[in-house]
């Protein structure tokens, strides 16, 4: 296959667990840059979309590609067989569950008037999936590649620190937090450090207190 194009079979891609749903990390796998694109997969009764609102101002379109889903949009429930398109503006609470095994959603989202610049959360979901499957080397490699592409983005070393802390690797976690500290506004970072349960494994380490000082 040439480098100029790629084919994905959404039912076969390894999903990443994310907030009780199974993410098909389409944007991450393709390296797509023009908008946020992703997929969700679930069997009958399973959660497709983690319940949330888009406080970012994103417009989002959900497309049922395979199977059947029930969407809950605000207070309203909607039946959505394959071929259904569901548009949800920012600020509306949304979730969906699968009604059939192997149900697949395709999602496109972006912010009006802005060039797409997202793609942090899904990269992290992929890395976290590797961690949960016991593949810490792959988890690190995903974050390292992201940091090489976006060296200015402090959230990336910060998220790597979360992964290392969750895996019980204190030294690696502090090395990553040190990198985050060099890039991040001090107050913002400290606010995250105080409230983030992902870091509980390293919270009692004296090095943690130094970061808050």
């Amino acid at each position, binding site marked *: 296959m040439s480098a100029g194009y790629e084919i994905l*079979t*959404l039912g076969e891609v390894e999903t990443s667990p994310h907030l009780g749903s199974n993410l098909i990390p389409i944007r991450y796998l393709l390296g797509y*840059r*023009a908008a946020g694109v992703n997929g969700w997969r679930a069997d009958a009764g399973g959660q497709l979309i983690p319940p949330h609102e888009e406080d970012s101002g994103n417009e989002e*379109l959900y497309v049922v*590609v395979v199977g059947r889903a029930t969407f809950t949009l605000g207070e309203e429930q909607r039946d959505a067989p394959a071929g259904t398109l*569901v548009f949800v503006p920012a600020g509306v609470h949304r979730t969906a569950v699968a009604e059939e095994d192997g149900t697949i959603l395709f999602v496109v989202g972006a912010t009006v008037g802005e*060039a797409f610049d997202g793609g942090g959360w899904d990269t992290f979901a992929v890395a976290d999936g590797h961690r949960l499957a016991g593949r810490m080397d792959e988890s690190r490699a995903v974050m390292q590649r992201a940091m090489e592409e976006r060296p200015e983005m402090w959230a990336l070393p910060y998220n790597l620190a979360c992964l290392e802390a969750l895996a019980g690797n204190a030294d690696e976690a502090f090395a990553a937090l040190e990198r985050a500290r060099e890039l991040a506004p001090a107050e913002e970072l400290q606010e995250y450090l105080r409230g983030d349960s992902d870091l509980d494994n390293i919270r009692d380490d004296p090095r943690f207190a130094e970061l808050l000082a």
Partner: protein
Amino acid sequence: MSVDVVHVDELDRIELQDGFVWRPVRRHFGIRAFGVNAYTPGASGRVIEEHTERLGQEEIYVVLRGRVRFTVDGDEHELGQGQLLYVREPSLGRGAVALTDDAAVLATGGTPGEAFEISNWEFMFPAFPLLAQGRYDEAKQMLEEALEQRPGSPQILYNLACAEALVGEPDGALEHLKAAIEGDEIFREHAREDSDFASIRDDPRFPR
């Protein structure tokens, strides 16, 4: 804007000249943040026109139903429901024909690093079935409205000139054709071959 749910079969059907049917998704919902549309096969069995992305867009095509044969960069790939084709490189030629009558393909695209703007063709394509059916006055009116939305668009100017030539308004046709060519030289070549301009080709003002 509010929540809106629609099935792909309920979207407008706009049959285009190559024999495929455009199902306007972005326009239906009034989406302004990204480009998205669906296509179903028409008379010719084609479902995605043969094209390149001259404006530098990357595109994803998702098969929503049926089976489809894509041709991309000269390679053929058969895709079914739940498979997608991502074309990263805008200059690669791509297109698709339906292998089953029920085929439906969703396409989404945009230019990396740029905020999405509605493509000129979205304003222009609704006029094409009218032109094909000989409803030139209605097509002309639609293209005039398109030009108001996208002032100076060479593609819209060119197609407006076609409609004007077909309704017998040579002055408007020649003026708009000239403006189209000033915007993009490629339309000088198109105009030479285009039978829509038969009524004005002998006019001394016709661009050579």
